[in-house]
């Protein structure tokens, strides 16, 4: 027994060192493939020092346009999230195994969501720009569709975990399908839905900050302008504004989650 344990440990040790060696070898290999050699690293560190030196103090020449761009980013994120949430609610009910009208429809929706989720939001924005033109609209649509990909999955998982007893009780009381969903299903998943939707708003604010990079409106474009003119101090200012947006979104969604939980706790106990 003891001997077995000893050999097992030995094996594990050998295995671990092989893994470590492979990981390290692949790291070196990747560096060489990317042509990252010491000389280039030194040069880029010099450049980094130069950028960093030119970043301070952060300034902005057009505070108003920076502000409006930041607001626009937030608005894009809010609309993208709301549209995504509304559409996902319908799709998730149709996708959940226990509520769907046909399992094939469920698989189709899940497959669609999986594909939509795997294509990053920025690429969706690029496609929507070609389809509907520049401006905030493609950004909103891109965020909405990318949100659908994630929300249908997590909503669907929450719906599949509900207690079917409630549904059966309502059904036997003669409730229609819509009544069952509104009265029996949604109240029991409300908490999970709120948490996920707020999380998605958080994610969308991050995305909306960079959508401008491809021309889909918002603060990303301001950053692009500053960087293209090598005005690192302005770029730092935009970065700080983005940081502020993301941070305040985090704080706000945390507060809303707490408030929603407190409200339901107050009503329940």
């Amino acid at each position, binding site marked *: 027994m003891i001997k077995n344990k000893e050999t097992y440990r030995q094996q594990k040790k050998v295995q671990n060192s092989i893994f470590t060696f492979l990981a390290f070898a692949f790291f070196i290999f990747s560096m060489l493939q*990317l042509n990252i050699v010491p000389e280039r690293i030194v040069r880029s560190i010099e450049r980094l020092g130069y950028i960093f030196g030119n970043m301070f103090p952060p300034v902005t020449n057009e505070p108003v346009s920076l502000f409006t761009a930041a607001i626009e980013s937030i608005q*894009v994120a809010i609309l993208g999230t709301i549209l995504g949430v509304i559409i996902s609610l319908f799709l998730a009910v149709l996708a959940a195994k226990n509520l769907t009208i046909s399992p094939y429809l469920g698989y189709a929706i899940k497959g669609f969501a999986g594909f939509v989720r795997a294509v990053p939001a920025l690429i969706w924005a690029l496609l*929507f720009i070609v*389809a509907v033109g520049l401006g905030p609209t493609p950004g909103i649509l891109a965020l909405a569709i990318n949100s659908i990909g994630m929300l249908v999955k997590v909503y669907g998982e929450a719906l599949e975990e509900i207690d079917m007893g409630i549904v059966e009780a309502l059904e036997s009381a003669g409730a229609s399908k819509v009544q069952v969903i509104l009265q029996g299903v949604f109240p029991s998943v409300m908490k999970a839905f709120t948490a996920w939707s707020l999380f998605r708003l958080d994610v969308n604010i991050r995305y909306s900050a960079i959508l401008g*990079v491809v021309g889909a409106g918002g603060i990303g474009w301001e950053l692009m302008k500053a960087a293209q003119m090598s005005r690192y101090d302005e*770029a730092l200012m935009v970065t700080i504004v983005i940081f502020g947006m993301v941070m305040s979104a985090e704080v706000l969604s945390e507060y809303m989650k707490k408030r929603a939980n407190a409200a339901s706790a107050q*009503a329940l106990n």
Partner: protein
Amino acid sequence: MKQEALNISNQGEKGLSATKPSKYSEYKRRRKIMLKSQGFITAIILLLAIWSIWGTGFNLLSLFFGTYEILVFIFTDMFPPDLTVIGQLIGPALDTLYMSYVGMVISVVVSLVLGVLAADNLTPHWTIARVSRAVTAFLRSVPAVVWAIILVSGIGLGPLTGTIAIGLSGIGILGKAYAEVLESIDGAQLEGVRATGANWFQVIGQAVWPQFKAGFVSWSLYKLDMNIREAAILGLVGAGGLGYYLQGSINLFQYKEAATAILMIFALILMVEYMTAKIRERII
């Protein structure tokens, strides 16, 4: 109000004469609170929506037009994908993979240091912990693409820029994750090893590492998953990899080639997710 509710329900349980009406009024009261807070939240959401629609000039009809247009675009302009360019895409795809991996290694190494410094139970001093946490919070809140844009104009186009951008934003996530895992380890074991007179390295090796390993591996692999997605889009701003190719083909109106690039990104993401899942299973 909570106390009051508690009293009433206690009375109800004791079976006092006023059970029925008080339960019913209690139900009504709770329903009122529920409706009120629901109404409040709905009103806020509606206001936010109206404000945003007004600000962005979004037309609700464009939801339908947009869906229509994108479907037309995908099925007439992008479909069928031009598979002949797959040969040209293998190089950028591998670049994307290398960028994500090297970026992960950079962020793992830096995050290990920052994580140890930020963890309450291992930090040399609490001010250092605060500083380390602030640095990771800042790096975490700024998306990788932002770093890439700044670095592209400073260092130049190419995968090196993308790698550094990925590494920087990775430090934000991994630094926090490592610190949290380190803080959750069992302090008694640490004390035990320390009591035998072990030095700092021995404590780390014998007490910290065995408890830290599982969290370390799964967070690092999770980051690798995320990196592939990020690396794929960093190219859009000129930082190398598949995104660069995608941006180029869209600019040249070669949408069928772009479709192949998107499929390639999709395949790469799935492949790496499958591989990291396998590695995670084996190690943990």
